C-alpha cells in the first residue's frame, strides 16, 4: 500500500509548483488573460522546454510515456496556478485521444509538434441537444471519394480558437442516440467549410461553436476504426476525468489554504474571524471535503494502475471514475461556495484570486458531465 507519488513525479510536481509560484502569479495571469491571444505563447514554449507538454505521450513519439497518475500529478500543480494555457484541451483531452489512437502516421506527424509546442488541438463532441450524452450525435460524416464530408454543429469546444486541429465526433452509421456508428476524425482548423463563433468562458479560457458545412476530411484522418469512436472515447475517458479531478484537487487545496489563512488575519468584533466557532466548524467541514476528494482521486489513481495491470476491467475503472467526478463535484461546490462566503466582500472581487479559482472549479464541474450526471451513471451500476 503506497499513496505517495514517485520520486520522478514529485520532481515534476515540485518543478511546476515552483514555476507557478515564481513565474505565474496572479498578476502574470491577469496580463496573459487580457492579452490578444488569450494565452501566452511564451509560457507555452516554456512548458514545452520543461517537458510538461510531453507527459501523456508515448516514448516512441518523444513523449514522456506518462500514465494516469503522471498526468494527474501534473494537473494537481497546474490547478493551483489556474493556468490559462490550453493544457487540458490540447494535452489532456486531444492529446490522450490521439495518443491512444491506432493511426500511427497521424500520431507520428502530430504528437512531436504538440510536444514542441507547435500544435494545439481540441475535442469537438458536444451538440445542441446532447447535454452530457457523448453518444447523442447528429453531426454526420458521409463517405465520399478519398474521405468523408462532415456536416453539423459542435458547441462549447474549449480553446478551439487557439487550435490547429479538432478531433470531431461524427455519426457514420446508426441513429442519433446509438453508441455504435460513431467515428472520430482529426479535422484541420483551416479546412474549407469550417467556421467558428468564439466566446470567452468564465475561467478565461475560450470556447467556440463550430459549424461544419460540407467539410472534407480524408480517410487518413480517421482516428480509430470506423464506427468505433465511442469505444475509443470510453477507453480514455477515465484518464481524462481523473486528470480534471486532479486539477480540481489542486484548486481546492489552494482555496482551503487561502481561506484558513485569511480567517486568521481578518479581524471583526476584535478577534480574527477564524476564532469564531461556527466558522471553525465550517472550515473543518471544508477540510474534510478536501481530504475526502483527495482520497477519492487517489482511489481512482490506484485503480488506474490496477486497470493497467489487468486486475480490473474498463467498466470497473469507468465506474470508479464516475465516482471520483461525482464526489469531486460535491467537494468543489462546497469549498467554492464557502471560500467566497468566508472571505466576505473581498471574496466577491475580481481582483482577488479566490473567485478565479472558484470559476475554474465550476468549469471543471461541467466538463464531460456534471456531478449529478456522473453520480447517476455510478448509481445505476
Amino acid at each position, binding site marked *: 500500500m503506497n499513496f505517495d507519488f514517485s520520486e520522478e513525479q514529485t520532481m515534476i510536481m515540485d518543478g511546476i509548483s515552483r514555476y507557478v509560484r515564481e513565474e505565474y502569479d496572479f498578476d502574470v495571469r491577469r496580463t496573459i488573460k487580457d492579452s490578444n491571444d488569450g494565452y501566452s505563447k511564451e509560457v507555452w514554449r516554456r512548458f514545452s522546454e520543461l517537458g510538461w507538454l510531453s507527459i501523456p505521450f508515448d516514448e516512441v513519439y518523444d513523449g514522456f510515456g506518462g500514465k494516469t497518475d503522471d498526468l494527474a500529478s501534473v494537473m494537481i500543480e497546474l490547478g493551483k496556478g489556474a493556468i490559462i494555457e490550453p493544457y487540458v484541451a490540447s494535452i489532456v483531452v486531444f492529446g490522450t485521444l490521439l495518443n491512444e489512437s491506432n493511426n500511427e502516421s497521424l500520431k507520428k506527424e502530430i504528437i512531436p509538434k504538440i510536444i514542441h509546442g507547435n500544435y494545439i488541438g481540441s475535442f469537438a463532441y458536444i451538440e445542441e441537444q446532447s*447535454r452530457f450524452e457523448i453518444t447523442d450525435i447528429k453531426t454526420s460524416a458521409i463517405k465520399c471519394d478519398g474521405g468523408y464530408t462532415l456536416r453539423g454543429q459542435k458547441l462549447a469546444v474549449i480553446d478551439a480558437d487557439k487550435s490547429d486541429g479538432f478531433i470531431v465526433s461524427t455519426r457514420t452509421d446508426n441513429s442519433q442516440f446509438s453508441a455504435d456508428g460513431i467515428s472520430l476524425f482529426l479535422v484541420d482548423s483551416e479546412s474549407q467549410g469550417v467556421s467558428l463563433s468564439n466566446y470567452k468562458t468564465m475561467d478565461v479560457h475560450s470556447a467556440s461553436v463550430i459549424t461544419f458545412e460540407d467539410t472534407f476530411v480524408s480517410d487518413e484522418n480517421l482516428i480509430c476504426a470506423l464506427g468505433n469512436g465511442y469505444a475509443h472515447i470510453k477507453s480514455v475517458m477515465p484518464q481524462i476525468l481523473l486528470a480534471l479531478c486532479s486539477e480540481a484537487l489542486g484548486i481546492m487545496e489552494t482555496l482551503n489554504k487561502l481561506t484558513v489563512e485569511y480567517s486568521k488575519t481578518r479581524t471583526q468584533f476584535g478577534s480574527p474571524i477564524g476564532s469564531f466557532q461556527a466558522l471553525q466548524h465550517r472550515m473543518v467541514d471544508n477540510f474534510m471535503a478536501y481530504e475526502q476528494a483527495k482520497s477519492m482521486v487517489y482511489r481512482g489513481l490506484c485503480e488506474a494502475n490496477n486497470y493497467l495491470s489487468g486486475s480490473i476491467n474498463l467498466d470497473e475503472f469507468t465506474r470508479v471514475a464516475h465516482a471520483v467526478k461525482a464526489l469531486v463535484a460535491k467537494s468543489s461546490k462546497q469549498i467554492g461556495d464557502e471560500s467566497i462566503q468566508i472571505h466576505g*466582500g473581498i471574496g466577491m472581487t475580481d481582483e482577488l484570486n479566490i473567485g478565479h479559482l472558484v470559476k475554474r472549479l465550476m*468549469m471543471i464541474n461541467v466538463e464531460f458531465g456534471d456531478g449529478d450526471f456522473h453520480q447517476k451513471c455510478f448509481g445505476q451500476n
Partner: protein
Amino acid sequence: MDTNFSKDDIAFRDEVRKFFDDEFDSTLAKNLGDGHGDNYKESIIAWQKKLYKKGWIAPNWPKEFGGTGWTDTQKFIYESERGLAGVPDVLPFGLKMVGPVIYTFGTQGQKERFLPKILSSDHWWCQGYSEPGAGSDLASLTTSAEYAGANYLVNGRKIWTSLAQYADWIFCLVRTSKGARKQEGISFLLIDMSSPGVTVKPIITIDGRHSLNEVLFENVSVPVENLIGEQDKGWTYAKALLAHERTNMAEVADSKRMLTELKDKASKSIGGGGRCLADDQVFQKQVSDVELDLMALEYTELRALASIAEKGMPGPESSLLKIKGTEISQQLHELHLKVAAHHGGAIALTEEQYDEIKVGSDARNRYLYGRAATIYGGSNEVQRNVIAKAVLGL
C-alpha cells in the same frame, strides 16, 4: 386562519396586472438587463417615474409622506404581481432605506427637501455603511466627521457601495466621537456626492461587472443640517433601518418568478439522449426541495406582515426572512446554472451569438453576483448571531 382575497382585492390585483402589462414592456426589460443594461440608469429612472406618476412608488411609506395607504393584503398582491411580471423592485437606497429614516427621524426641513425627490427619483441615493475594516462588525467603522462650525469635515473610506457611480447623494454612518461602546459616537449623515473631495472608485466583481464601488472622502465639507437626528445617535437610526431592510430581503416574489422560469426552461431543455431534463427525478427533487422552502417562506413573510399589521412589529418568524430568502435565491441560481450546463460558462462576445450562450451567460452572472446576497445586508452569519441572541435568548 385565512388568506382569502376580497372582491376589492381581486379588482386591485387585476389593476396591478394590467398596469404592469401595459407599462413594463420588453424594451424596458432589455434596457434594464439584470442591472447591467446599456441604458440602465435612464431606464430604471424612467420606470420609477411611471410608478411615481401612478402613485405606486412607495407602498411601504405612510400615506402622509407619499405612501399608497394599501392594506397588507394589497401590498402582498402588489409584490406577487411584480414578481410574476418580472418587474424589478425599485432601487432600495432612497425608497426603502434612507426615505424611512428621514420621515421617521428627520427634521421638517429635511423631509421637505429630500422626500419629494426620493419619490420622484430625481435623487439617486447610495448607502455608505461598510468600510474595509468594518464589515460584519459594522460598528467598528472609522470614517470620521469632525465638527467645525456649521460643517462637518468628513474623512474616510466606504466600500461595497452599490451603484455609487450613478448616485447624487449618499447616506453615511460616520464617527463623530469616541464613545465607551463603539456603537456610541456614530452619526447619520447625508452627503452630496458632488461635494469636493468625494471620489468613487469602481470595484469589479467576480461576474466581471461593475456595480460596487469604493467611495473616498477627503476633507469633504458637509453642512450640519444634513445630520439626521442627534449627533452620536446614528446607530439607533441605522438599526431601525436594518430591521426594516431585513423584511425586504426575502424576495419571495422574485424567487417565485425564477422558479417559474426554471421549470419552464427545464421543460424545454433537452437532457441528452432524447430525454427532457424536467423528467429527471433527481432534478425534480432538487427543484421541489427549493419550491417547498419557498412556499413556506411565502407564508413566513405573510405571517410577518400580519404580525406587523396587528402588533406594529414583526414576530420572531421575520428573523429568518433574510437568511432563508437569500439561501433560496442562491439555490435557484444554482439550478438555473445546472440547466445551462456547458453554456453556463459562456461569456458572449457579440450580440449575434447563439441564444443559449447568452442565456447561460445570464445564469452565470446571476449565480456569481448572487453569492453576495448571503454576505451583504448583515451576513447570514451575523443574522444567525442576531437570532440566537434576540429570539432564542442564547
